[in-house]
């Protein structure tokens, strides 16, 4: 009964939120697609010139989203969902011991759902509306203002082309899947011993204080249409996220998704402690067939992740697509080759891990580098991440169960840095605009861009690491991070979920 009341209360809260949202939608809905989510409700611009420019713009009919773009982004969103449930769940599920299979699947399934709900309540607003350089605001709580049913009008989000908006709700959904899969990635590092409730509470804290701000810092800007004159460029830049202002390039989430989750995973592996039997017993994957299926579905879904991050169905999406395809194939080959040389036998787990390493490393680079970049980044990712899960892992002395740090953080850092190299137009990269009004080439030098990329990596590592450490400690002190040793030996399937993956 208590629970029922709680559900009713929550439903009422949601209803109130959306109702008040609709009231506020009306005055903003007839503004021209100001591109960035927050721009629609932005305070009056201080610069008088900017106002004049806006007034001119208002005279023109508001651009409408392209139907092809919309279709592609909806497809991409579904593809990223497929990357998490089922792909990541199967990839991880196959790598744990059979007694922990369902716990892994459950954690991914439930965390994905949890973060999606949080995203629609406050996460999207915190990440993708105007605030300061670190956090967004609360303009879009419960996604208010995104749809006005009375007028049948939808708010617009920015893409990377002027006069080419995207329905904001499509952007919300697309980004929701990113937030959710990032939180799921962390789970692999603390697999086979974490308490289910602890995982959920940790994710709520970490998602709020690490994922949302880093997504804001890296990806939030007002969009190309906000740059209406040369005079507003600095003003508009100043409203973007910190790392975006620095000029850090991250096409689909090298920092936001992979370094972020990899670091949180490693911190978790240290704080939760090693699995019982680690260093003595063989803690082997129980079903590499599942892992291979998971890796293959990840590869497929990653086209939505990377090519979808172009936000339009255009040439850059095509570039991101082929880069994602090619770099992954390169990484499978280089990891397999490396394993054959250093270990004697190339393994299926190695090939699957190589695919993920390549996908991770090409993520920040996908639409930011040319084909040469994809070759090098892919080949490097296979070998560097192979070291990440062997040599580096032995140095770190943490029981990162499913090598989240060794693959995602190491691959993400590699990709982020090499993006700074291969964005160079002289190396076949597309470069990037120096400001979004003049649209002149902005790539200065490899050294300068790599330094910018390194600074972005540093901020992400520190931010994610510190937030994760505090969050794990809080959870440990309140509900405890780990299950008891007996439960761990019994296996989390039975101990935490009361069921078994296999009944033979």
């Amino acid at each position, binding site marked *: 009964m208590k629970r029922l009341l709680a559900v009713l209360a929550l439903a009422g809260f949601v209803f109130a939120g959306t109702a008040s949202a609709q009231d506020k939608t009306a005055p903003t809905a007839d503004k021209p697609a100001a591109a960035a989510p927050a721009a629609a409700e932005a305070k009056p611009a201080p610069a008088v010139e900017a106002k004049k420019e806006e007034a001119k713009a208002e005279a023109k009919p508001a651009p409408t989203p392209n139907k092809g773009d919309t279709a592609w982004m909806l497809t991409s969103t579904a593809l990223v969902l497929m990357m998490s449930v089922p792909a990541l769940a199967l990839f991880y599920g196959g790598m744990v011991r059979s007694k922990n299979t369902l716990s892994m699947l459950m954690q991914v399934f439930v965390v994905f759902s949890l973060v999606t709900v949080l995203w629609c309540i406050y996460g999207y607003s915190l990440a993708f509306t105007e605030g300061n350089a670190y956090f967004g605001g609360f303009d879009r709580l419960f996604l208010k203002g995104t749809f006005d049913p009375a007028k049948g009008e939808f708010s617009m989000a920015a893409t990377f082309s002027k006069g080419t908006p995207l329905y904001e709700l499509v952007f919300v959904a697309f980004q929701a899947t990113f937030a959710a899969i990032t939180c799921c990635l962390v789970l692999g590092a603390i697999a086979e011993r974490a308490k289910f409730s602890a995982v959920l509470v940790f994710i709520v804290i970490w998602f709020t204080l690490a994922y949302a701000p880093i997504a804001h810092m890296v990806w939030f800007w007002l969009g190309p249409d906000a740059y209406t004159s040369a005079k507003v460029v600095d003003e508009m830049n100043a409203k973007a996220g910190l790392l975006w202002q620095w000029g850090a390039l991250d096409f689909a989430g090298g920092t936001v998704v992979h370094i972020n989750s990899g670091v949180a995973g490693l911190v978790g592996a240290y704080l939760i402690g090693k699995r019982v039997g680690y*260093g*003595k017993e063989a803690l082997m994957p129980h079903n590499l067939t599942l892992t291979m299926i998971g890796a293959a579905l990840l590869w497929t879904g990653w086209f939505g992740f990377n090519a979808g991050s172009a936000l339009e169905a255009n040439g850059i999406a095509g570039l991101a697509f082929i880069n994602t395809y090619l770099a992954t194939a390169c990484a499978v080959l280089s990891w397999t080759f490396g394993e054959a040389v250093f270990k004697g036998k190339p393994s299926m787990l190695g090939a699957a891990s190589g695919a993920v390493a390549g996908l991770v490393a090409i993520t920040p680079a996908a639409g930011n580098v040319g084909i040469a970049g994809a070759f090098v980044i892919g080949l490097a990712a296979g070998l560097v991440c192979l070291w990440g899960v062997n040599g580096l892992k*032995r140095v770190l002395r943490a029981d990162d169960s499913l090598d989240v740090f060794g693959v995602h953080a190491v691959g993400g850092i590699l990709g982020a840095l090499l993006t700074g190299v291969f964005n160079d137009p002289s190396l076949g990269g597309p470069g990037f605009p120096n400001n979004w009004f003049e649209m002149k080439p902005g790539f200065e030098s490899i050294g300068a861009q790599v330094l910018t990329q390194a600074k972005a990596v540093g901020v992400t590592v520190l931010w994610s690491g510190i937030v994760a450490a505090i969050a794990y400690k809080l959870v440990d002190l309140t509900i405890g991070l780990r299950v008891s040793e007996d439960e761990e030996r019994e296996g989390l399937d039975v101990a935490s979920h009361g069921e078994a993956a296999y009944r033979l």
Partner: protein
Amino acid sequence: MKLVTAIIKPFKLDEVREALSAIGVQGITVTEVKGFGRQKGHTELYRGAEYVVDFLPKLKIEVAIKSELLEAAIEAIEKAANTGKIGDGKIFVYELEKVIRIRTGEVDAAAL
């Protein structure tokens, strides 16, 4: 009568069975077992994590034979299961007091 028990490497089973059949042994019992001898366990590395393999998988075969077949049976197992490398296994020989075939009630030599 003797009971010969041998611990062998799993992949040698077929060769051992053929060698024993060739000298007239009528039946074998095989069990999958784990254990260690001189080969002991060893440390392996899996993705940067060490682990100790304490018990290695082996097969245990049991053969009940007439005493006069003993030398030939030992020789057959020794030859067939030998790889020359550590971990080939051992052969144990026991006195066998009595054998009874359950279906017919035949005893000893007739039951073998």
